[in-house]
Structure formats: C-alpha cells, structure tokens
C-alpha cells in the first residue's frame, strides 16, 4: 500500500469539490493515515477556479502540494484540469470530468475555449481518464451525485479499498441520499474501465 501521496482537486466554485475532497480525506483517515487538506474560501468561491489540496502519509507537515508532486488530479472541468499542469509529473493520473464551463472571456466572445486541450496532458505522457460524470450521475438517478461519481473514478488509483469509501458515505451522508451516493461511487469507479 502506498505510504504517502498527494491528491489535487480542481474545478469551478459550486461544483462540489469540497464534498469530494472531504469524502476522500475521511477514507484516508479511516485507512489509518495522517491527512491534511487545504481549501480556499471567500472571494474564490464566486464562480472562479477553485482547488483543494489533500496530502496523506504517516505524518504530514505541509498542507500544500508542491509543484510537480500531485500524484492524482481530480478535475471537475476540462480547462481546470489543464490549468494545474505545473502540479503534475510524468506518473500523475488525471481524472477529469468532460464538462465544459465557459470562462467569462469565452462567454463574452472575447476568447475561445481551446479544443482538444487534454491532448496537452497526454502529449506529456500523463495518464488521463476522462469521465462524463453527469452521465454517470444521471444513470443512478441523481445529477447532484456527479462529484461522488468523480471520487469513485479516482478511487481506482488509491490503495484504499472501495468498502472504506462506502462506509464513509454511510457514516457521513444523510440517510435519504446514502444509497444513491453509494451507487454513484460504484458507477464512477466502474466507469474508468468501461
């Protein structure tokens, strides 16, 4: 089992990144690791780029991931995957939701949304797993579980058993949303090798 690691979450304010990173942190805690997680609140939540850094290991000091040191990037939007390129290394895995959210300059017609931008990652030998998290969430009947589907997809790259995540969902999610979130996790996990 990997003894330490760095997971970066990125996306746009309001996409459910905090919940996804919380689930992952709890799973790592349940697996016996020390964990630190860094978030940004305030101005950054008004529809801007948001990120959460999660680090786990026997003893974690810094709450921030170094450049070139993210083992996994969980990106909730395509541009927000590529924006964090300096955090990645050649053996990083990027789990990316194929949703596109237009940045203001694009919505105003003053810039274009770059085409096939994920190729920039694969060209650098970075492993990219693209998931339509909304389609996965829709398949389990609740669009708002897209973030948990992303956690499911990401879990393939962790040594933590999926049962640990399911237990965390049992322990932390309100009862009426538990089953659908567990389904979303499983469907997201299965989507990687579909």
């Amino acid at each position: 089992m990997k003894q330490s690691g760095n997971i970066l979450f990125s996306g746009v304010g309001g996409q459910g990144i905090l919940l996804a990173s919380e689930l992952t942190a709890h799973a790592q805690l349940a697996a016996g690791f020390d964990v630190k997680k860094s978030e940004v609140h305030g101005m950054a939540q008004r529809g801007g780029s948001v990120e959460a850094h999660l680090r786990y290991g026997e003893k974690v000091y810094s709450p921030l991931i170094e450049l070139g040191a993210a083992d996994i990037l969980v990106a909730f939007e395509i541009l927000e995957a590529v924006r964090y390129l300096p955090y990645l290394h050649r053996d990083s895995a990027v789990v990316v939701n194929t949703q596109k959210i237009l940045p203001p300059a694009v919505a105003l017609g003053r810039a274009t949304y770059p085409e096939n931008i994920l190729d920039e990652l694969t060209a650098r030998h970075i492993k990219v797993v693209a998931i339509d998290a909304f389609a996965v969430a829709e398949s389990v009947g609740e669009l708002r579980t897209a973030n948990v589907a992303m956690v499911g997809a990401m879990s393939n790259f962790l040594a933590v058993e999926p049962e640990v995540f399911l237990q965390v969902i049992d322990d932390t999610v309100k009862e009426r949303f538990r089953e659908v979130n567990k389904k979303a996790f499983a469907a997201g996990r299965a989507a990687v090798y579909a």
Partner: protein
Amino acid sequence: MAFENETKLWLSGNEAIALGAWEAGVRVASGYPGTPSTEIMGNLSRCEGVYTEWAPNEKVGLEVAIGASFAGARALATMKHVGLNVAADPLFTAAYTGVRGGLVILNADDPQMHSSQNEQDNRNYAFAAKLPLLEPSDPAEAKQMIVRAYELSEQLDTPVIMRITTRIAHVRGVVEKGTRSATPEPSIEKAPAKLVMLPGNARVRRVAVEKRMQAARDLAETLPENRIEPGTGRRGFITSGVPYNYVKEAFPDAPVLKLGMVWPLPEKMIRAFAATVDELIVVEELDPFIETHLKAMGIACRGKDLIPNQGELNSFIVRKAIAPETVGEIFAPLELPMRPPNMCAGCPHRGLFYGLSRMKDVFVSGDIGCYTLGFLPPLSAMDACVCMGASISMAHGMAKALGKQGEGRIVAVLGDSTFMHSGITGLLNMVYNGTYASVIILDNRTTAMTGHQDNPASGRSILGEAAPALDLEALCRTLGVKRVTVVNPHDVEATRKVLKEEIETPEPSVIISRAPCVLLPEEVKRKKPVYCTNLDNCTGCSLCVQMGCPAISWTPLTPEEAVARGYREKQKGFARIAEVQCNGCGQCACVCKFDAITKKEAK
C-alpha cells in the same frame, strides 16, 4: 460531516480555534466577519456557555472583549489582518491597562491576498503595541495554543495576539479533544489606577508594560511552544507558523528552532541554537520580522535574501530558494482563458453596476465586498477601492478637490454591512461639510462575501434569533441627508433613471439599492421564474451579454452560419441563457429591446 473517535477530531483550523477557545473557558467573544477568520465566531456561537456576537466593526468587537476582560471573564476578539488596523486604537491602550480575565486577539493574516486588499504582516503589531504574539503551525497546534494564550494573558497581565494565516484557518487536520476549563465567575472590581488611562496613570502603566515584556522575554526561554528540534548537518533553520511545515518537508533532517511565541523572542535560546550551526536561515512568510530582530541582536543569519517577502510560501519555494540543485524540472503552465470570480447569476448588484457602466463620465468610488467584482469586465464600473468605508470619504475628498468640474460625476458605492462598519461617519462628514457627491448603499440584507453573516440591519443575531433591524433610510435622514431614494436594482431601467437624477443633484443624496442576495437560504428555496432566449428574435446586439451574467453566453457566427440560421449576414453571433444557471432576476429581459428573452413562470 465529521471524523471522530474517542480522542480525535477532523477539523479546520477555524473550527479547532473555536473549540480551543471554548476549552479555555472563554465566556464572551465578539468580532466582525473577514476572510480567513470568519468561521471561528460561527463555530464558537454553537458552543454552550459562550456569548458570541457579530459587532459592526473590529474596533467595537475588541472593545467589547476588553470590557468582558475587565469584568473578569476570558474574552476573545476575532478579525482578519486589516481588521486589526480598525481595532488598533483600543489595542495599543489595552496593552497598558492589561487584563482581568484573559484576553486574546485572534488575528488572521492572508498572505497571497486570496481574499484581501493587501498582505500586511501583523506580527509587526506585536512589536509596535508591545504585546506577546503566538503563532501556531497547524490546526492541532492552533487549538492547544489558544489555551496557552489565555494562561499567558492572565499570568503576564496582558492582551495576547494569536496570529494565524489562511493556511491554518482553511486547512483541515486531525486534532486532539479536550475538556472545558473552569474559570472564575465575572464580577465588578474597580481598579481605576490600572484601567483609567489618563496621562498620570498611563505613565505608571507605561513602566508596567516594560516590566511585563521583560517577564515575557524570560518566560519565552522555557515556553514549551519554543523548541529546538535536533537534526544533522551544519545548516539550521529558525522558523514559525505555517512555514515551519515547509522547512520540515524540504529539509526533514536539518536542526530547527521552532518558535511558537514570535514576540518577544527567546534571545538566549536563539543564541544557543545559532552557536550549534554554521549557517543559520530564517524561514518566514511576508516580512523579515524574526530576521530583523535577530540582526538587531547581532546574530548572523540569512533570510529574505533567499526567501521571497511577497506572497504565500510552500515547500517548493523554500526548497528552491535554499537548495536549487535539488529541484527537478516542472511542466510550464499553459496560457488558458482565466477564470476570475464573478457576481452570481441573479445578483442584485449587477443591475446597479450595469447602470453605472453606462455612465462613462462618472467616477465610481468603490468599497470592500462582493460588489468589488463590479470592477471586472464587462461591467468595469468601479474606479477605486481602498478599505472598508473609504468609498464615501474618498468621494467627498474628490469632490472637494474637483470643485465645479466634478459636479454630477462623483458617486460612492458600498454594501449595507460595510456602510455600518465604517461608512456612517463618512456620510455624516459629507452632510456636515457639504457635498454634491452621491452615495449608493447596496442593501442585499446580509454580509455576503464572507458567507452570509447577519448584521445590525438583517434583523437577526448571530444565533439567528430576532434582533432589531437598522432602518437605513431613517438613519440617513437623521444624519441630515434630505434626498434618500430606494430602488429595486433588478428593475434596470428605473434604477438608471434614479442614478442619473441623484448623481446630477448638487447636494448630498443616498440611493439604497435593495434586493436580497440570491445565495441567502430563503432566496435559494424561493420558487423563481426562469428566463429563456427566443433565438429567432436575437439580433446579436449583445446588450445582455454585456451584463456579465454567468448564465448568459455568446456564440459567435460566421456570415454563412448567420444566414443558415435565418439571421442577417452581418449578425456576428447570438446570446443564449443557460436555464439551469438562471436565478430569475429578469435584468437581462429588461435590457433586451427585441423581445428575445422571455419569462417562464416557476412550476
């Protein structure tokens, strides 16, 4: 959601500090919201046996805490770094009176300015005000350290500053559980020679301040929070706060002197540590605070010649600054369209700023809040922003400097909470000394930017209980403003008319732009209509797009595509509303002249 076992909890730094304050037996806490400090008071308000409140500003908050301390209770004032500027007046003199119950000022700095207008280093206040300052490195330590801060405050008869930064406030980690200490019951006890700071008494207390700082200096030598972590190699580090973590990550085997109390410094301990290494490096965020004082002691060290004095540090920056040969190559960032924050879909401020954006000759003196985003394109309708409440006084100063040529061209814009924080005195000044400038109060019924805290105009206390709500119109009239107009900013046309008329009026006038923040829970729950685009009618005029609503986007068209869609060949594109994002404010429908935006009623 909470990880919890018999002894441990998973908490953010702000949650940990609230819990630590509760365990320390704090009875009274007052503060003003400010990122990254805000959640401390919110969390503390849910603890048993502590009175908490949102004060109108940080000066009031600290004075409330001083009063509680004078009554013998352990007291807490919370604020962000710039809030301590507002509270600096009571701070410097509370340093003379000292305390009865322990008094802690929890100050949150924001290196990198994630959500701030400057990145001042408030460790300098400890030096200037002659107060002890503690600085934790992570949430677990923050929780323990605030308990120590109360012990020191009472032992040394002094307020104590605890300084955190964003990477403690908003970092989550595992913390140890504790129990609440018993503290003495509050009571009235008169001590005028100590508490009445007129010159005769203050001169006596001035001497006491120096004695106390000497006692603090002696105590620093054995304080467990100041510790030497032995290591190997001839290079040693002195560090404190969050940067301690970066040193431990970058140079795990090096000897480290970790300072938990950053002022006053343990000089003997520092000298002893310096003697054990050949090269001494101070790693600290922002100013060379420790470094400067080490150099004043005559201790040779390096610091800001290696480590940046701007922005947030991390282990990569520390490693690269000190041992560049150990840093590998990094993928360079790509040029991508930026994604700055934006006002929300349905934000009432947008309607107001849209009106101002159409008045190109008008100088908009702005202020601190969500509405500062009115600066960003496409609205680009803010021309200055300095500090809380400054919009009004700056507008007054501009008008006085410009005289006749500024008439009808100067307007101040600030939020309801910011107005109550420090705008009221500015408005009083305008009336007293006369002006032609106008003031717009954006009254969205909450303190939105920091996460919807209640305030004196919201009608609710920090606990959500009914509270008297300030009548803004009546207050402005009482201050002597004769022209007070209330507008609904979602009615874009009516708002523009009022703006024009009031800004042109050569006497003080206040426009209250009133509509609730769309993120308030009751607004989120409310059934709202949705607006949709009738694409056949869109002429591509782009007026709605120019409002910068995140729910509206522009699709460019080539002449062939335009013709294929049945548009004129010259039409450059069309606008479309993403209905899932629409919050139903209807501002875009107000500006559309071609009947291309229509309302669908809520189901």
